[in-house]
């Protein structure tokens, strides 16, 4: 895996969702490498492996370990705690948004029904948090 390419971890159990996110990211920033984890344990494994991870896109509703728990785990790791975590959820419940920010999420974005809208919000996040080494 080329070291210099920025790595993005997508944590989501829904294949379609991962597919759409990856597609959107490819559109926004073709140079970045998006990895996907389908549950908590998988995510933890990948977090240990990925060495140039720059952004984490985290869903809340996951089988087994939930998104908030993964967020807590990340924030406890000295190596990982500075990596921005963006919570991407279909939920619009105030409770979920609040919990996410409390756990240390950098931003909360809604899984919009409209693909171009979703791409737009993802674009903002990537522009803000991704260190663009290649362009």
């Amino acid at each position: 895996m080329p070291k210099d390419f920025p790595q993005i971890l997508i944590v989501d159990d829904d294949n379609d969702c991962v597919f759409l996110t990856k597609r959107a990211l490819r559109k926004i920033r073709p140079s970045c490498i998006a990895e996907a984890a389908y549950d908590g344990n998988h995510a933890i494994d990948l977090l240990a492996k990925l060495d140039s991870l720059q952004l984490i896109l985290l869903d809340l509703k996951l089988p087994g370990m939930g998104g908030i728990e993964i967020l807590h785990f990340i924030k406890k790791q000295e190596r990982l705690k500075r990596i921005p975590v963006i919570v991407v959820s279909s939920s619009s419940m105030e409770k979920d948004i609040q919990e996410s920010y409390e756990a240390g999420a950098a931003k909360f974005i809604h899984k919009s029904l409209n693909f171009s809208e979703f791409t737009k919000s993802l674009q903002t996040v990537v522009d803000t948090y991704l260190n663009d080494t290649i362009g």
Partner: protein
Amino acid sequence: MKIKTRFNITVVLFSGIIAGVLIFLATTDNHVKKTSEQDELAKNISQGAIELSYLANDYLIHREDRQIERWRASFARFSARIAGLRPETANEKLLVKNMVASVRQLEMTFNDVLSGVQKSRTNQGDDYLFSELFSVSSSRLAVQTQGLFSDSQRLSRQIRSRLDRLANIRTFLVYAILFLFAIFLLANYILTYRRTMRSVAALRAGMKIIGEGDLDYKMKREWDDELGEVAEAVNQTTAELKKVTASKTELQKEIIERKQAEEAVRKSEEKYRLLFENMTEMFQILEPIFGNKGTATDFRYVEINRASERLVGKTRKEIEGKRAKELWGIVEEYWLEMLEKVLKTGEPVHMENYSRELNKYYDLYAWKANESRVAIIFSDISERKRAEEALRITADELAATNKELESFSYSVSHDLRAPLRAIKSFSDILLEDYSDILNQDGADLLKRIGTSTNRMSAIIDDMLSLAKISRESMNSQEIDLRSIADAVVNDLRESEPERTVEITIARALPAFADARLMHIALMNLIGNAWKYTGKNPTACLDIGMMTKENENVFFIQDNGAGFDMSLAHKLFQPFHRLHTDSQFSGTGIGLAIVNKIVQRHGGRIWAESEIGKGSTFYFILAGPGGSKR
């Protein structure tokens, strides 16, 4: 002047006069006695003079010495009598003086006779001489004694006349005094009698008036005497009597009142007794028993009613007077604490109690009956308790169901939305990335997929929010719906700036409600009005409030499409629409949400409409305390 004073004066005067008369009589009597003695003396002197004359003659005849002694003895008595005379008048004094001189001469004459007799004895036989002497002396003696005799006789007469005069004066004076005294008595009698009689008559008349009941009558004080005082006393007594009579009336009134009160108490007691006996609730009067430490250790049943007998399953005889520990073996601590608290604080206690023996729940009300007793009414609330228990179970089940529903809703929002989103996104990608190879029909179909997924998403959202409205906690307070309506209207204007809608909002719309929920409700109601006037170029909205039967009725009126009133009953049911989506888009959830919100505020909502003319939605919110949640 008082009668007593007059009486005293009369007595003093009377006594004085009597004393005066007595003294006068006594003194004059003494005087008369002394004068009579003098008279007696004068008479004795007369006899003495005769006796002296006889004795001298006797001596002259017999010339015996023994006769001299007798004469001298007689003379001595005679002289003493004369010396005893106490002449008073001038005549008497003169007479006595003469008599004293005569006595002296008589003694001298007798002495001369004696010396003559001596001479003749020495010259014995000189009878001549003696006869001479005898005749001279005897005549001299006779003259002298005669003189004395007549003097004493005259004196006696004088004294006796004086005595008569004295007696006359005495008699006169006595009569005069008695006469004056009689006049005084008569005058006194007449005066006293008249005054007394007049006063007595006035008193009698007054008494008669008072006796007839006029206690206000005042006696006149005729005189300043005892009867006047009596009148005064009667006046005072009448006044006192009046007071007493008044208080007597009051007393009678009081007695009547007391009797009435006693009767009321008796009736009340009877009522209480009836109530006590016939009430279906247990009624017991208990007496806590205090231990050495001053805390209640047991209690005694003082009185129980019939309901208690029935429910406890023991007769009154078995219970009354018995200690709880005697009866039941054990008394629960909290029960004793409750009794002690009621007795010590005097504050009633209201609590629920479960009796294991009877398997019953009681709502008991205990209060202090007197210093040592506590009265308790037990209402059997077992039924209610069981119903409550059932209700609690149902509520728990409901809560569990709600929780399930919540997680279901969450799943729906997430799980349904995810594939929906995928469909929508994929069709979006197709439209965007493959437009060059899609013909018009294909693109149209993909757009239709997009619209359908949008609708389905809207339905899911509304479903979720409807579920949320029922679950969410409420925080009602005094709010003004106007500010909410303003905000909603602003949002609408911003969303469709090209529309011109005339909106009137009342100046104040005070309500007691949850602001967040009311925002959702008004958003739907005003949003509907906005939506259904969309085809009216002169759209008009009126948001206001009116008062009907003391209730604030809020309304939102529009001049939009309106609806068929015969279908009004379906208006507030979820997913029921009165218009097709092609006419006006919507999910059919909005009014169901509004209805739910109004219901949660304890209010109600209804609508009036006419097709083509517009609709008016009315709602009422219950005030504070009136809401059923």
